[in-house]
Each structure stands twice: as C-alpha cells, then as structure tokens.
C-alpha cells in the first residue's frame, strides 16, 4: 500500500506554509528574498542597508541646485521650507532653536534614508543612490561636518560623527 500522491502533496504544503507555527489563520504567504530587497529601504544608524554607490559634495551641489534649492534655499539656508545648515549653538539660550542637519540631527544615516524615500517632495524616490550620497555629502559639507574632498558611501557615511550625536536623553516617565 502506498500513500496517495495527493495526500503527500497536502502534507508537504502544510509543512511549507508552516500552519502549525502560529495560532492564527496563517493567511500570509512567504515573502521571497528578492521581494524583501526591493522593499527594504530603511537604513539603520550603523549603516545597515546602505546600497552601493557614492557621491561627493561637488557632485551634490549640482543635484541640490537642480532638485532641492527651490524649497530649501541657496546653501541650505531654508525658505520657504526647512533650513538644513547652521544653527550650531542655538539649542540653548532664549532665542528659538534652529534645528538643522548640522545642529540637531544625531545620525548621518538618517539623511540618506530620508532623502532617498521622501525627497524631492514633488518627485520622491526619483534620485539615484549616487545622487542621494552626493546630496547628503553636500549638506554635510555645508555644515562643516565633512571636507570638500570627502566621498560618502556605505562605508564612510555611517562613520561621520554628527555634532549633536550625544544630544539626546532617553525619556522616562516621572509622576
């Protein structure tokens, strides 16, 4: 007596779908590594997820002039939208804080992550990875955080020390 073929198939399918693992109806399907790679655009503060490619401040200045300047102003000075440069020393005192990439953002990786996913506002996800590295390099250079000849890539960007890296305190509730 041999086990009917269709029964073997059914048992195999159950094992593959892992129905026994969870309590729920298990109606998801397994995602393929290729699908995940295409969707996983988030970059961790350690640089995990940064793509290949690179960019320099000089190249970034050209991208910035074409894609960013109308909203963020010449040299990242802001107006009409967020100021990207300056504000160092403004976090304390009586005058309003000027929170920019240079004065406030704790991680350089966030700059790459955010520009790639959301900018420019009217054409998000239109920049190449090289262009995103370049624009990030330009904004970091304008803020005096990297040099004019520095190149940003998956290795160098996460090593950039942001001025306000230690400017945050983990919140704990007090009554």
């Amino acid at each position, binding site marked *: 007596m041999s086990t009917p073929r269709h029964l073997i198939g059914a048992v195999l399918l159950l094992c593959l779908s892992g129905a026994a693992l969870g*309590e729920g109806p298990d109606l998801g399907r397994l995602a393929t590594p290729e699908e995940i790679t295409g969707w996983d655009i988030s970059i*961790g503060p350690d640089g995990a997820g940064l793509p290949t490619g690179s960019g320099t401040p000089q190249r970034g200045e050209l991208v910035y002039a074409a894609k960013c300047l109308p909203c963020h102003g010449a040299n990242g000075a802001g107006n009409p939208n967020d100021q990207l440069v300056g504000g160092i020393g403004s976090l304390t005192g009586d005058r309003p804080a000027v929170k920019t990439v240079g004065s406030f953002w704790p991680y350089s990786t966030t700059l790459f992550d955010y520009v790639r996913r959301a900018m420019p506002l009217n054409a998000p996800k239109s920049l190449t990875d090289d262009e995103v590295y370049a624009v990030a390099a330009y904004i970091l250079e304008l803020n005096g955080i990297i040099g004019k000849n520095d190149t940003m890539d998956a290795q160098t960007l996460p090593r950039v020390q942001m001025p306000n890296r230690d400017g945050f305190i983990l919140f704990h509730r007090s009554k």
Partner: protein
Amino acid sequence: MSGKRFVGSNLEPAAANGLLDRRTLLQAASLSGASTLLADPAGAAGELLVEPWMRELGSPFTGYGQPSKFEAKVVRTFASAPGTTGTGSSRTPLHRLNGTITPNGLHFERHHSGIPEIDPDAHRLLIHGLVKRPLVFTMEALARYPLETRIAFIECGGNGGAFYQKDPAPLDLQALHGLVSCAEWTGVRLATILEEAGVDPQADWLLAEGADAASMSRSIPIAKAMDDAMIALYQNGERLRPSNGYPVRLLLPGYEGNMNVKWVRRLKVTRAPTMTKDETSKYTILLPTGKALRFVFPIEAKSVITAPSPGVGLQGAGLYEVSGLAWSGYGKIARVDVSADGGQSWAPAVLQEPVLAKALTRFRLAWRWNGGPAILQSRATDSSGYVQPTRAALIAERGTRTIYHFNGITSWAVGEHGEVRHVYA
C-alpha cells in the same frame, strides 16, 4: 416638573464662583428649562408656524448621507507647508461636536506628502526582518482574520504646541487643541500576525513604514506591538478614510499620532530603533539644557473644556453646563475637576459613561454664571494616579523650547458679555 428640572435644594455649590454639585446634573434632564430664556431667532415669542418643509415632499434617498446644510460651519481647518497642498495638518472642530466619537470626515489629519490614492487590491503588508518566516498579506487576507474593535483617541504629538509660546495665543479650541480625535477602530491584532511570522526573542523594535509618497516611517517598541497594537481596517464602522490610512493603518492606542503609521505596508522587526527622520529631528522634546528627550511615546493625561470656549460664549447670567474632553495614553480617566476661579477651588465633574482606557472621555458639570469674571479650567487625573499639571508647572520642568506633548491645563476667561478667550492663569 416631576423632579427633572433644577430645584433650589439641588443647587449645592461645590466650588467657588458658581460651580455646582455634580448630582445637580444627574437630577436634571434639561438645563434650558431653568436657565435664562434664550432669544428665539425665528421671530416673535409664541408664534409657532407650520413651516414650508411640512407643506412639500421631502428629498429623495442618497447613497451616502451628508450633514445638514445648516451645519456647514462644522468643518476641519487646515494649513499646508509653503508651496505644497496636502502636506501639513487639519484640525477637528472639537468645539462644535459633542459626545466622544469624531465623525470620519472630521478626524484630524497630519500628512507628510499628501494623501495617497491606494488600490486595496494592489496594496500589500510585508512583515520581515528578525522573524522566522517573512510574510506578505493581501488586504483580503487581513480581513479574514479574527477582528476586534476598540475605541481609541489619536493625538498628534504636536497638539497644543502654541501653549509653549510666551503669550497666550488668541485662538479657539480647534486651533489650540484640534489635533486630537477619537474613533472606533476595527482590525487585526498586530500580535496575531507577528506571532505567525515568529519574532526573534532578541528583537526589541519594529519599523513601521507607510505607502505614501514620504514612505513615512517610525520605530515602535516590540512590547507595544505585542500588547494592544492593531492593524486597523475599519473606522467607525466603515473602511478607513484615505486621509486616515486606507486601506490599512497601524493603531497604537495612547501613543503619539505620528507613530500610528497610515497606509502601512512594511513592518521590519529589528534589534534597535532605525532612527528615522521623525523620531530624531522632529518628535523629540528639546529641554532648556539643549538636550532633547527621545522616545516620548504615550500621551499624558490631558483635558480641555469644549463649552464654554472661544466662540462658544454665554448669553446672560444663569445656569450652564460646563462640558469637555479628557484623555490619557496611560489608561482610563479616573476623575476630572473643574474650576471657575482660575484654579483656586475645584469641583469634581461627572464622567459620562463609558469611560474607556486610551479613549476620549466626556465630562460635564453644572455652573451658575453670575455674570462676573470667571476663569474656567479642567484638570484630569488618570488611572495611574497622574494629575494634569498647570501650564506653569509643565514649563518649569520642561521649558519652552519644544512644541511637543503639551498637556498642561487650559484656561478660558469669561468676560462680562459672556465672551470667552484663551488666557494663561
């Protein structure tokens, strides 16, 4: 009549300047019966007409009902970032609503790159990262899961930001506090599908990402995701509105609105927070020291009087109902006290049932306005014992260099003509 009106023996004062015992309200069916007669705009007193709408056939059916045209003022107000449309926020007209549920068309909005028009058949939810089995869900599959329903408020972390200003902003309730709304949400418990994916015990965080043009993303503690988080499909009985995440959004009861990621399409289980733009450069509380508090997630206990309020004034001395909303991201509202003398004396308000955790709670209290100056305030206490602070106490602790998580007491000054304005007191 028959004990349904205010009578002298029930009008026990409970605090100075006319606040009455809360039992006064419980025994009264109608305030107008005992208060000053209101002017009748329809014409001469006593003239009850047979109106035109009683002499003609009414309107036909419509597929989806709309409010009366006489309610045209009950709308959201909104502002967009310079040079953009749909990037900014819209505010709920809390002063023109009652009860606790926000109608879907009036729920506040905060969009970072406009409202996407998402085809639900094409939308997918991916769970991946530190899981045994990365899974993809269609919307049809999610709708087949056991669903649950809960009522929860959502409040923008920036609601009340104007209270950090040096001088009181001459604004109404909608402009000051309109970034909070409350709805009945129905969806799948996030823990159910996370368990199916098999979360690595070393994972402490979850990145949630939306399918809008900004791919808005936030890091969520895995403990919250496994506790009471929901993948919401329905809002007040109907599918989510596009402006609130259609076809599917993350609901994190009690957590600041920004984390309740709309149009959610990806959940990545991670060991550490991703440090996205919004959780580093935006939703942090800058202290006077120059350091900023990070990961301030639940909304602390808060309350505000909705009537009277600016634009919702009084018409002559007499009996009124002081009514408002209270909420806490840490649990239920335990009590609300009301003051009519700027916080010198307090009287406990009636809490309207049901009082639900992490939901708006309506409070009410009878007040006899004597026509003189008054400063109305409300003060919430939640089930954790936390008491809503005065603005001065909050600022003494936190300073004025932030715009986030203001939950101090709001003060409404009542003028001699019954007009109401926002003051610091």
